[in-house]
């Protein structure tokens, strides 16, 4: 089984989620490894800083919210059977 490329960043988010929710609910956090880089008003701003700092290497930009809402599709074009990292 392949490891999720962003596993470490997602773990960092979960560890800090309550603090992030308290101070920055609805904003976007930029995380690299175990480090929270900063919080931004928009996803595009967070990605811009992420690319500027880390170039084309994996980093996490995540909306700070209590529950992550899945994206919904009515199309039969999408054929998923396994999570992306498997």
């Amino acid at each position: 089984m392949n490891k999720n490329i962003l596993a470490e960043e997602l773990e960092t988010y979960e560890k800090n989620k309550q603090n992030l929710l308290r101070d920055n609910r609805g904003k976007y956090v930029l995380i690299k490894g175990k480090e929270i880089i900063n919080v931004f008003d928009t996803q595009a701003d967070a990605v811009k800083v992420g690319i500027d700092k880390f170039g084309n290497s994996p980093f996490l930009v995540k909306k700070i919210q209590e529950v992550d809402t899945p994206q919904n599709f009515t199309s039969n074009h999408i054929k998923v059977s396994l999570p992306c990292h498997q």
Partner: protein
Amino acid sequence: MPSVTLKSENLESEGPILEVHFLIPSELEKKYIEEKKPIPEPVIIKSLIDTGASACVIQKEIPEKLGLEPMGVTKINTPSSKEHECYQYFIRMVIPSHNLIYEGAFIAAPLEGQNISCLIGRDVLKSGILIYIGYANQFTLSLL
């Protein structure tokens, strides 16, 4: 507001399909130019405008061809699956002939059938206008 208008004899059966170019994000392109790295060639594919898609989906191979790394993970629900995890990539989508540009997060997932490699979802449409004139087999997409 830049816009593209297309006619299709098979609009009812195929839906609003258009050819788009995928490129690396503009910020990364600037960085590559500064670092004198080669810019990956655009990936040109057919996209379907899908009002039943809450977000954009691209064929998994597109970010691989552009050499991009993920910037997020999201869960997706489809008619045949629930809460599947997929990577998100920040990508620039362009229709060069009409100067339409959208830069944002795209979900990478396997897409099958009709040579469609991208679903353009409501996250793009929220900053645009879609006019679908069925009796004329014509549609127009405008983006801010």
